[in-house]
């Protein structure tokens, strides 16, 4: 049920982001979606790509600090209050969202959100129990 995400530590230096995306591009890796969290000194680039292992290897070879994280992709009805319903359900079960971001493509009529939870397994149980659709990684990588 998980989706694999790679995270890359990037200093706030000119051209670093361009370099990461160029390395991936040259290796033939397609970025499915991304988010960038930043502070004044550094940023963390989080990516979902079509080939996680390859992306990790090529970036490590070029000296980047890379880690793999498990995140959860959830389908969200594309209507007012769609996201609020999900967050409310999580809140009711005491599950924290560490961070989240939107997937670029739609899945049918639904939007897709990527979540990082403090308790992934519990979150999945809660969401499926309430009838939310969770997208497995294989589907997401190739949407």
């Amino acid at each position: 049920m998980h989706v694999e995400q790679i995270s890359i530590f990037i200093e706030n230096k000119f051209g670093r982001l361009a370099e990461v995306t160029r390395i991936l591009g040259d290796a033939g890796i397609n970025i499915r979606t991304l988010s960038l969290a930043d502070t004044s000194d550094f940023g963390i680039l989080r990516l979902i790509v079509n080939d996680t292992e390859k992306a990790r290897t090529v970036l490590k070879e070029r000296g980047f600090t890379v880690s793999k994280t498990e995140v959860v992709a959830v389908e969200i009805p594309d209507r007012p209050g769609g996201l609020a319903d999900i967050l409310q359900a999580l809140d009711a079960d005491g599950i924290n969202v560490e961070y989240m971001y939107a997937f670029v493509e739609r899945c049918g009529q639904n939007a897709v959100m990527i979540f990082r939870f403090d308790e992934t397994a519990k979150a999945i149980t809660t969401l499926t129990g309430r009838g939310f659709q969770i997208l497995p990684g294989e589907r997401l990588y190739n949407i």
Partner: protein
Amino acid sequence: MFFNEDFETLPREALRALQLKRLKAMVARVQESVPFYQEALKKAGVNADSINSLEDLARLPFTYKQDMRDSYPYRMFAVPMEEIVRIHASSGTTGKPTVVGYTKKDIENWSELMARSFVAAGVHRGDIIHNAYGYGLFTGGLGAHYGAERLGASVIPMSGGNTKKQIMIMQDFGSTVLTCTPSYSLFMAEAAKEEGIDFRELKLKVGIFGAEPWSEEMRADIEGKLNLSAVDIYGLSEIMGPGVAIECHQAKKGLHIWEDHFIPEIINPETGAVLGEGEEGELVITTITKEGIPLIRYRTRDITSLTYEPCVCGRTHARIARMSGRSDDMLIIRGVNVFPSQIESILMSVEGVEPHYLLIVDRKENLDTLEVQVEVGEHLFSDEIKHLQALSQRIEKQIKEMLGVTSRVRLVEPKSIARSEGKAKRVIDNRKKA
């Protein structure tokens, strides 16, 4: 004006005779009471009786900071603990500080030398001394305090920090003398300006600044912004504390070192050879009156030169030039001594930190800043910002707790800190250009 005219203006011949007498007596004391010196003197084949002239000093062994560390805490003391009335300590290169003990007589001598220093700087009875040197294990605060009382001036024991309060007290109490680090004086002047207070309007007339290296340009800057006469003071806890040497306000050209208590030498730090008058090298000091911890040829690691030329002020004591640097890698950050190895051991105690770090020291708005760059390898990396920020804060907190300096930890990409084949470059000090 002198505090102790007889001694401060003693003709050089008499001064040298006094030094020899005191040197022999000191060596006689330590060869009896300090096992470290017993052994070191034996090894060098010297004892008190074989010292016949001041030139024989060069035959005596050096004492290093490491020797004091190895004797932690009390093994360098030359008197029983019943005789020790005060203990101070300064930072060492590892976790343990260097400990010094003072007898009642040592405190009296220190107070007198500090009182002499105040007078040399142009301070009198009736002055109100605003003492912003830190009180505590650091010798600065209490050393200046006792000297001020010995002189009979009024002393305000402010200690460091709390700048707004410092300014208010200085303004309301009519302080006439300021003692602190030179950079802090400028920082206070800037802070006062923001409050709408012009330091030039205050009653300050003398500033006695030390505990960190500064330049003639900085003196001009301070004198202009604070409207006072700024003099340089030198001291180190191993030798005594503040008041080992001071500039006279008449010449402000070199710091008189109180030669009836200390014998200064300048040596080549590589070979240990004694250098001549005017030659630049490492300052080595022998304490000839200290009772608690007498030191023979202590390697200060400060680079300077010595002159015996008569001074316009009338003092006959030699002058050392402004410190131009260090013969080791010690940094002085806001008056606090910091060795890169201390920061390294703090970093290494944090799980996952790799031994690649870089210290960047700078001076911004007149205050020293310390940036510690730490490489984020896979073991440290978390994809959540809060964990990385907590890591930085944890290191900053430990540096503050262990070393007493405020730092800013900056996480950088792996391999972004230059590797070198020989000795790694660990420090970039941008203050030197200032």
